[in-house]
């Protein structure tokens, strides 16, 4: 047993933490949150330069990491600083799908992603699919040498900034079948593709995407026709590890902000952190934080292994962090009082990151259901 980070990952963690604490201050982040783009191209470029994007890809794909613990190391730091830049969408989801399924020419995009030159979005979820990963009603129909996409995609994060969207569509099978789903690489300005963009509560932007007879060449398909689900499941597993780690990082920050605040805020003539009732609540948060840390280690450590065991550990981590995260977010706000209710105070954003993470890829209940299904399997 060894729970230490490797030297490389330790260096990555140190340099990323230093960069973010120097450059990604609360005021910088609040400006980014208010901006039209919803993220900073400047910060993005610097993260890429720092090798943060490359750390999310294997050497085979042109990166220098890509394992579960690389992902958890990077995303825990992003979470600690409340980073809203779309690493999950462009690198893990978009880049990950192209790396998994793309041919050599398509894979050139991965290199550009690692260099920071390209943004991607994964247009998969639909208005009624909720958290179900195989429910795809969007259709792909072959017409001669062309493929025609029809359907709607919901809450596509980073869609407006993306140079290419990776769109899932069904070529065969029932609406919720894992067989028959294909992926297509669609340049954002393709005719027939339109989007309605909006800001997200926890930062960043997303869009409702309409595919009204989008015509693509056959070369736009990633991988074999109807055979994309396994790669989607693999990439979503990586994204869920990332999201769990990111939430853990945000929980660390929330707890630390609360601890510090209680030591300085004075009421009734003494720091409120001297009241035992509040001390116990901070102790509970610290206990839950260690639970969350271990859950992330379990999930990251199983990412490369057997798929059922991987998914079981991911469902466990996401359920635990869903529960513990809500406790940390709500109790941190409560113990701060009114100040934590204000937009400009750091905790407000951090608490939103924690709670809203539950709404990507399944909340605590959905993960519990998934855990039980996998346990019975």
């Amino acid at each position, binding site marked *: 047993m060894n729970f230490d980070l490797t030297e490389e990952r330790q260096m990555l963690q140190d340099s990323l933490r230093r960069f973010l604490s120097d450059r990604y201050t609360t005021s910088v982040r609040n400006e980014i949150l208010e901006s039209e783009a919803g993220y900073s191209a400047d910060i993005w470029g610097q993260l890429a330069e720092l090798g943060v994007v490359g750390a999310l890809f294997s050497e085979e794909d042109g990166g220098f990491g890509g394992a579960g613990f690389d992902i958890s190391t990077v995303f825990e730091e992003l979470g600690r600083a409340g980073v809203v830049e779309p690493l999950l969408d462009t690198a893990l989801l978009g880049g990950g799908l192209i790396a998994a399924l793309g041919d050599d020419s398509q894979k050139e995009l991965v290199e550009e992603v690692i260099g920071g030159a390209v943004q991607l979005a994964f247009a998969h979820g639909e208005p009624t699919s909720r958290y179900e990963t195989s429910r795809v009603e969007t259709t792909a129909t072959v017409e001669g040498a062309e493929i025609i996409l029809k359907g709607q995609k919901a809450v596509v994060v980073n869609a407006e900034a993306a140079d290419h969207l990776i769109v899932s569509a069904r070529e065969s099978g029932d609406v919720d079948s894992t067989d028959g789903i294909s992926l297509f690489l669609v340049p954002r300005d393709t005719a027939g593709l339109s989007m309605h963009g909006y*800001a997200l509560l926890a930062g960043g932007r997303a869009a409702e995407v309409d595919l009204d007879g989008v015509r693509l060449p056959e070369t736009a398909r990633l991988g074999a026709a109807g055979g994309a689900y396994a790669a989607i499941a693999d990439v979503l597993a990586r994204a869920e590890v990332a999201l769990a780690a990111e939430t853990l990082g945000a929980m660390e920050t929330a707890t630390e902000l609360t601890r510090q605040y209680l030591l300085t805020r004075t009421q*009734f003539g003494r720091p409120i952190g001297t009241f035992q*009732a509040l001390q116990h609540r901070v102790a509970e948060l610290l206990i839950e934080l260690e639970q969350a840390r271990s859950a992330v280690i379990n999930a990251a450590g199983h990412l490369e292994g057997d798929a059922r065991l991987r998914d079981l550990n991911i469902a466990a981590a996401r359920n635990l962090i869903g529960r513990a995260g809500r406790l940390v977010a709500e109790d941190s706000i409560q113990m701060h009082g009114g100040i934590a209710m*204000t937009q400009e105070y750091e905790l407000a954003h951090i608490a939103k990151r924690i709670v809203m993470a539950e*709404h990507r890829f399944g909340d605590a209940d959905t993960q519990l259901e998934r855990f039980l299904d996998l346990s019975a399997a």
Partner: protein
Amino acid sequence: MDLSYTAEEQAFRQEVRSFLEEKLPKEMSDAVREGRGLGKEGHDRWHAILNEQGWLAPNWPKEFGGCGWNAVQRHIFEEECCRAHAPRIVPFGLSMLAPVLQKFGSKEQQDYYLPKILNGEHWWCQGYSEPGAGSDLASLKTKAVREGDHYIVNGQKTWTTLGQYANWIFCLVRTDPDAKQQEGISFLLIDMDTPGIEVRPIILLDGTHEVNEVWFTDVKVPVENLVGEENKGWTYAKYLLTHERTNIAGVGFSQAGLETVKRLARSQMHKGRPLIDNPYFAARVAQAEIDLMAMSTTNLRIISAAASGQAPGVESSMLKVKGTEIRQEINDLARRAAGVYAMPFASEAVEGGNEPPIGPEGTAPVAAQYFNNRKLSIFGGSNEIQKNIIAKVKMGGRA
């Protein structure tokens, strides 16, 4: 024991229901149900409709123009208003200041201010909290120094709800800096148009502008705007806070909120079936409903005791804690029900606006409301302070 309402009470409920069906504008109830803000005009309009009916001041005695309703009638009214998605009556003038003026104000103050609260000419806000005085309200520092016929007020208030709409503010100010904390405080009425007052918005974490900072720089306030006696303000403040805590259980809000959750869960699909059929989600909703059923009866027990003249003790603190916990749980359920469509930031949906909200009907405001209603356990005496009150009474050193 008899859990049913009397025939008179049932008739009263029917009367209220008919009134709401007839007089509550649909666009207003739609806005409330969809979690959209009303703006000042909306509040003023509903205020005027209720005043016209004579139902604006359920808690005022008849001689001041109130309804003279007992606690059970007030509860029924509240419940029906929530059920019909009527706008909340802005409480600062009607439910907070007015009882203080009725008990401690001079005849002149009663005659001048009370009618203006009813006719909407005065919109009041509350100047209690300060940056350094939250749960420990008595540590407030805003000071008022007597100079001839005026007090000169300097300091800062915060968390002033809807202060951007108000033209008057009632303030706790320190008039004797040397006295023990609670003993040097006075209760002042201040015209917001007086030079030296500045209102600065505070944007909350859901993007709404609901509260403000109010800054006072050498603000001249006529001495006749003092309520009661100088340095006795803490007594009046405490009296006001007991009124702030009536209807603190928010039973009607929770009932309406639970209906919203169920409606959402019927329309949201989970694995091809309505979410309401999913046992994990349904169990959460059922637990909230079970808690609410019991809390509703606790609330009625206390109301019933109050109607027969017993003053509530720690029970109001208990209701504040349990009532806000249930409301927040229901907000959490609504957030969960919305699924991925909880993610869009619905500033349009919350503040009101013409842009159609993102996502299926009813999903747009729920996440913002979840965050906004974290305030419920913070304001009006935080839940920790309520537990201190309960513990002090029940565990205060007596066996």
